[in-house]
């Protein structure tokens, strides 16, 4: 909870905003949903980091806890997509350096940070803004996984199909 609020706070401070309005109850709802209603039968303890960040992203964009828009001169039409933008940013940061514990391959550290083009980012923010855990959890998880393996090709399973 505090981690998330601190992240949002400094993200907005860096964008030059003095005040960001956050619905704290919705953030509690996101964190509670991740633990109590994790959208995979694996549960949060056994899920891969990609499923964890997908759960966070989809619950966050569904609950929309950040009320204040980002600066329109910089973000244009995406200024009102602040929940997707912050959620994706936080998840990319948390995947950087994450550890995959694979029974067959051992521990794998995701050394490289996800990087995408501006064009991809814009379309992805539009998509994530309309995502729901019940419908888009698996799709979002696969996007995170694909982007992570693109940046960390050695971490990927063998591509055999």
């Amino acid at each position, binding site marked *: *909870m*505090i*981690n*998330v*609020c*601190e*992240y*949002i*706070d*400094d*993200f*907005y*401070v*860096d*964008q030059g*905003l*003095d*005040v*960001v*309005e*956050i*619905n*704290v109850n919705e953030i*509690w709802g996101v*964190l*509670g949903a*991740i*633990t109590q209603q994790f959208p995979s039968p694996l549960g*949060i*303890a*056994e*899920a*891969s*980091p990609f*499923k*964890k*960040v997908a759960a*966070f992203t989809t619950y966050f964009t569904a609950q929309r806890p950040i009320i204040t828009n980002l600066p329109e*001169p*910089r*973000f*244009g*039409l*995406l200024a009102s997509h602040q929940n997707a*933008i912050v959620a994706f*940013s*936080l998840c*990319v*940061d*948390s*995947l*950087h*350096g*994450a*550890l*995959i*514990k694979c029974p067959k391959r051992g521990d794998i550290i995701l050394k490289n940070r996800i990087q995408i083009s*501006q064009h991809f*980012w*814009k379309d992805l923010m539009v998509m994530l803004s309309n995502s729901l855990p019940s419908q888009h959890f698996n799709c979002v998880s696969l996007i995170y996984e694909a982007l992570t393996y693109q940046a960390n090709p050695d971490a990927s399973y063998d591509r055999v199909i």
Partner: protein
Amino acid sequence: MPGQRPVKFKLLRAFVPVPGVKGEPIEIARPVPAAVCFPNAKGGLRMVDSDEIRKLARESSQRLTLALGKV
């Protein structure tokens, strides 16, 4: 019990959940472990402390600013 202790939380510069109390220290019970956000268990995400998460947020925000210019 880890993750259950109340923590002192000073409201942040830009974080105003309740109008008029910006800057006032409050105490929030923490029933959800912090590791929910950055769990280091199986398939773990990176565990970070308060200073690092602020640094990450600023770096990501700056990265977006540089990349976007204007969308």
